[in-house]
């Protein structure tokens, strides 16, 4: 059945992925909170971001479930920059999505799969690229992530920059969740 574009006012009853949240920042911010989430019901999220650097210099972009700012996050990164490929492992105070030394206005592209349901340590795998300025792309990475909290339902995600107003104007954040037919 062909129709024009359909705009259902409630989620279709179908097993697929639907955009749960999307925003484009109209003012620079140090962090942005997505609230009203239910990780135990959604189980998996797909996070897509195009960040415009609002800070001129080294910044890292992270994600905090429930705004947990403790040193409860692990990462293993594989990254290429210019002709150097390197791996590094460590712990941080957020899920590491991207870290770089980019310039104001540079673009960082991030995609992250998050297994959100409680009961086990939360895991995520992220790829990122940038910062990109004209025809220079500084890094390409693959990052494995963990949040060492198996108990709490995730009800919010905080996207953050380590530098003030690091999330620049035009940064776009999209979050997708599963919708179900039953």
């Amino acid at each position, binding site marked *: 059945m062909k129709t024009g574009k359909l705009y259902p006012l409630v989620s279709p009853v179908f097993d697929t992925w639907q955009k749960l949240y999307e925003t484009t920042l109209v003012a620079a911010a140090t962090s942005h909170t997505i609230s009203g989430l239910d990780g135990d019901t959604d189980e998996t999220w797909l996070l897509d971001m195009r960040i415009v650097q609002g800070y001129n210099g080294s910044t890292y972009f992270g994600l905090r479930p429930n705004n947990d700012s403790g040193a409860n996050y692990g990462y293993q990164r594989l990254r290429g920059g210019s002709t150097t490929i390197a791996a590094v492992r460590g712990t941080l105070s957020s899920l590491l999505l991207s870290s770089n030394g980019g310039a104001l206005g540079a*673009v960082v592209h991030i995609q992250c799969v998050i297994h959100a349901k409680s009961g086990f340590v939360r895991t995520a795998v992220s790829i990122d*690229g940038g910062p990109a300025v004209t025809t220079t792309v500084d890094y390409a990475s693959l990052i494995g992530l963990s949040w060492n909290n198996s108990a709490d339902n995730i009800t919010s995600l905080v996207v953050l920059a380590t530098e003030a107003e690091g999330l620049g104007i035009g940064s776009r954040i999209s979050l997708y969740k599963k919708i179900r037919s039953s």
Partner: protein
Amino acid sequence: MRTGIIDSPINDLWHVVHDSGELAAAVQNYVISGLNGDDDEEYELISRVVNNYDGVAGYKLFFNSDQGSNYGYQEIEGSNTTAQAVQGTHTGVYLLYSAAALGAISMDRANIQAKSGKVRTVLNQTLQSVVTTTVNAIERWAQSWNNTADNITSMTIASTQAGGIGIGSRFILLRKVHGTGGMRTGLLTPNSIKGTWQRVVDYTVAGAAITSYQIPNVAGNTYPIYRVRIRGVDKDTVGAWLLRLNNDSGATKYGYQSLSGENSTVAAGRGTNSGLILGYTGTNTNLTLGEMLLYLKSGFPRTAIHTLSYDVTGTLVSGVILYGGVYNDTTNEITTIDIVPTADKFDIGTHIEVDRLIL
């Protein structure tokens, strides 16, 4: 409102805006036109190319008609045991590449941030040049198009060789459907939605650990694109979490090329296995998170691009791996997909999600 098969875009769902089908004739360039990047904002491009040139062939993607040196890239790559990184500029987005072999298969998965106003960026992963069970390379790219002004209205995939995009090649472009336009409806209960991802498995191991899981109702020639995601919980040391097609456990039927990072060690490797590697755990109770994109249609070797993190416990993420994989069977339709442990079991809490693209 119950409906039959809806064959139109639905707000907030990704939707196929172009499917070339498997090409019936070789071409040098393939054009996807009638796009509106400023409206759509994002695209996902899934490409599978059959090299129709008896030699090295490269494939690039360019936006609108821009073939100038306006594209930048940063790449990491594993080829056999060599891991490397490369950065530079090019006359298009690097998409696919074939080493010198007529009939070699390459596959790419690209996410494109298309809206004007900023430099356009692409994140893509490339399975490079497969012949039987040998995967020439696996690559992760981050790329840019240095044009902030123009709306993207077309994309062209171009081969460096005349007729280089061979019979059987296929390009599928999905777009994000969003905005406030369109026909408002109440609750829709469709039988199916053409052009979107349909989740066919959403399974969590409960009650007792299991020794394998079979994905039901697979029809690889009808639904050639599958996406499999697993969050695995180890029971007594699984090792590699394998994905087998048509229950084929032949030890040399599956080839792979890997690029990995473990602690401060980077490594690349190539070999064969008795399945495609979906995850890995080497210790009881450890976790793995893996995602695999598969091209299943018969006629050519079946290919896969996958990423995974392994042996996750607490704040320790032991490693990450980027894989390119192949199943060296061109003939049989894929009707079963099994996920099996190399050893022991998948523990309670193991979660498997499978989507197929309805084309």
